[in-house]
């Protein structure tokens, strides 16, 4: 499955999408944890929103029926 990347997450991960196997992660929280281990710079963001199937998802949400996941960091430019 494709993880859609936005904002500075694109720069940190170096692409606008990342291939992942959703079955490897039971919840949004587990996915976030894995991502911050792979890309430690993501931790500096402190708050990163995850959307599952185009809806904002909290850490305890299951990824079982996920067909689309997005990683949305805060953006400050104006």
């Amino acid at each position, binding site marked *: 499955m494709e993880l*859609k990347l*936005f*904002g*500075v997450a694109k*720069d940190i991960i170096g692409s*606008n999408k990342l291939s992942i196997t959703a079955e490897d992660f039971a919840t949004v929280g587990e996915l976030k944890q894995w991502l911050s281990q792979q890309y430690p*710079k993501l931790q*500096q*963001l*402190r*708050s*990163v*929103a995850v*959307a599952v199937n*185009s*809806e*904002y998802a*909290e850490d305890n949400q299951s990824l079982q029926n996920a067909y689309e996941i*997005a990683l*949305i*960091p*805060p*953006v*400050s*430019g*104006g």
Partner: protein
Amino acid sequence: MNVINQITFSPEELSRYSRHIALPQFGVAAQQKLKAANVLVVGCGGLGSPLLLYLAAAGVGSIGLVDFDRVDESNLQRQVLFDIHDIGEEKAVAAQHKIKALNPHINTRVYAERLTAANAMNIIKEYDVVADGTDNFTTRYLVNDACVLLNKPYVYAAIHQFEGQVSLFNCVNNDGETGPNYRDLFPLPPAPEAVPNCGEAGVLGVLPGIIGSMQALEVIKVITGIGETLSGRLFIFDTLYFQTNIFKIKRNADNPLNGTHPTITQLIDCEPFCNAAAKSIKEITPQQLKDWQQHEAIQLIDVREPYEYEIVNMGAQLIPLNTITNNIATIDRTKKVVLHCKSGSRSLQAIQLLEKEFGFTNLYNLQGGILQYIDEMAPHLTKY
């Protein structure tokens, strides 16, 4: 409502707004609401430019303009409100002149100052709707928090390189339910060096034109009540791949402002908090740098990109941030080493990396980067 019904238009105004009034969903009633509205625009830059132009043109009766900054040549690539004659002028004042010339029927008020925890409540409480186009997290969290504490709808937009976000926060719907706000999405501000600003990361000039226009659209919809707003939805436009996304967002019980157990009950400047991670880094002023250079041998390193070095430099050794780990051997471990970039955030990042991964203890960050150095020590050099 009665008061709004009594708002009248001169023949000139009726002619000016005739294309609005001709819209069946809009009519005189919506135009009256616009004329009765007070909108505060925080930040008169990239997003503020189209926002102010379209709100003024649309006939929003009173517009407040907040910006502490002055127009710089490097703004003109995207801040279409200004031209070369405005360089050096206060943005809020120059912007006011432009929108008054566009529509003399509106009232304006200028706040040529920085929005802070001390003044935000007093300024924002005078307005019905707040639109934020600032370029930093400190002000964004401040505007969000003030709007939630004062029950004001907050039209949010932000940009990064080729990508823009828009939403409407803290808006009460017809059932009396309050929609989500910025802290539902991002409860805590990021570390200061984590997300670069437009000056550091670059931005495609047309992007704020598009996103700021969408922000104006949402302001107009909130005021007039037409259509469906972005309340409860976050819109993201990736212009590079021309992909639009809309994400449903919702209130979060853990929101520190208006969740089930609020911990923020008054405004706080998030600056010292935001900068907690950066506090341990040693920093020097441009004046200190000059004093040091006169008395001892120090190494000065510029972590910007080569094209920036070409625009202006202060004779430092150029080691772009992304090449720094390959150049560890060229960084002195005995004498004082000062790192600088454009405005201080990339050099901070470099120092954090060098201290953490390579054990350096002799590094100093030049406060405010080459821009502050030019302002304070070398005004003849080119700013960008």
